[in-house]
């Protein structure tokens, strides 16, 4: 069972607000899903060497466009901006 405290910690970790009134319900839903995925505990995977389906692929970091081409478009997409800068809440 996921406790209320664990649920609050999880919400903080995920940066997703979960109002006090919804904590129990969301915890119950996560519990039910975790109960279902616990079926994997029936499988012994000790000897299994993970065979990754994917590998990291890197490519040359070439400049795809000229600096500044998308400047106005991208700043216009910001929730808040000032003088061509992103405007964000104070960090410190």
């Amino acid at each position, binding site marked *: 069972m996921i406790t209320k405290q664990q649920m609050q910690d999880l919400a903080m970790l995920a940066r997703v607000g979960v109002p006090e009134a919804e904590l129990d319900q969301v915890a119950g839903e996560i519990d039910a899903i975790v109960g279902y995925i616990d079926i994997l505990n029936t499988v012994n995977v000790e000897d299994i060497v993970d*065979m990754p389906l*994917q590998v990291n692929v890197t*490519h040359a970091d070439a400049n795809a466009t000229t600096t500044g081409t998308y400047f106005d478009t991208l700043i216009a997409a910001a929730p808040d901006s000032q003088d061509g800068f992103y405007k964000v809440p104070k960090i410190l």
Partner: protein
Amino acid sequence: MALDLKNLTIEKAHAMLVAKEISVAELVEAHLAHARIADKEIHAFIELFEHESDRVAKAQAMIDAGTATMLTGIPYGIKDNILVEGHIASAGSRMLRDYTASYSATVIKKLDAVGAIPMGRTNMDDAAMGSSTESSYYGPTKNPRNTSRVPGGSSGGSAAAVAADMCLFALGTDTGGSVRQPASFCGIVGMVPTYGAVSRSGAIPMGSSLDQIAPFAKNVAEAKVVFDVIKGFDGMDAQTLTQETRAKLAEKPAGKVIGVPRHLLEMEGINAEVKANFDASIEKLKTLGYEIRDIELPHAHLSLAVYYIIMPAEVSTNLSRLDGMRYAFRAPGKDLLETYMKTKYEGFGKEVRRRILLGTYVLSAGYYDAYYNKAIKVRSLIKSDYEKVFASGVDSVLVPTSPSVAFKPGEKSDPLSMYLADIFTVTANLCHMPAISVPSGVDSEGLPFGIQFTANQGMEETMFSIANDFEKNS
């Protein structure tokens, strides 16, 4: 002239365009006019593109110059999580409600190059998370086959748009069945390609080891036409396969052996009529000269559990970028932390928030080994089950697309019951295999069934050939 949109296909429209019986403008306007009226009830589209005259003119010029190909001038729908430059791409979410794409997805550029006409953005579950299109920020879509039912999801708008003859094909994205399941519910064809066959550049990511862009069409041959246009290596998606890799993967013998994992049909929650329809489909394949072979996939029943660990883990990672700082929605709070928390709470619907939380849970230090690490190991076990089956000479594995026909809105209100709708579709994504859903008749209430053919990696040609045989004899 009045067009018979109901019986119109890409092939027929192409023939009429080339023969100058209709113009591109007339073909597009006929679909728009139909959609303006029919979509009042269905709600397949979030927005119709009414001002594509440049693209229309370019397509008409290609036809007039004799350089038209099959998709030139053909109107198509685009799931709202695929970027078209200058248009909003919201992923059906409040979070991206006002987000305008600054570039076009690679698939859109490829379709532009052949002169296809984007007709609008189609409805979808919030951030592609759902199996019914009920969780869209813009309200639900109805199933054109029976408006008291859901169209499936998450690409429900694309499926409904094609099924209701509002466009001739549509693009969706498939992370765990989000093209195949709605195709099945709406009685049309939908597929997922081999992972890496189609570039995801310009698709809003969900689960990056699972996501693929894929077409909906009215028949198998036309799904193949679209796939052939949108596939190919792209430097903008590092996971796309090169031509050489694709050719190598396709160098396997192909025959007429269908593998049937009957044990999977014995799982709980599979509708009796679906099972009967499945048996009837097997009989039909026998009469078409296919060898039916019983197969065992000992770990396949674990697919859904594996999927509901890996997918939320990747979702929680991918969606962390939507924090309300550089683009998209922001709900201001008293400080930075509260702004983050409020932005995600108000920007995303319940299901998206639940998956972010679940993904964070399975990736957290205390549970990483128990869940995520275990899931990736079981994933490789499931993959090796399929590899063995294909190595034994099976060409395609047959299962129903969905454990039920289209259900009613609100019927699956608890998350787990909704997740079970994906039980037959997630495996292809987990194992990077191509799969296609083909209509296989209707139930006692006239609701469509879908049958799903899964093939080995890179073996789309075989998959299309078998699916085509099945469809032609329906």
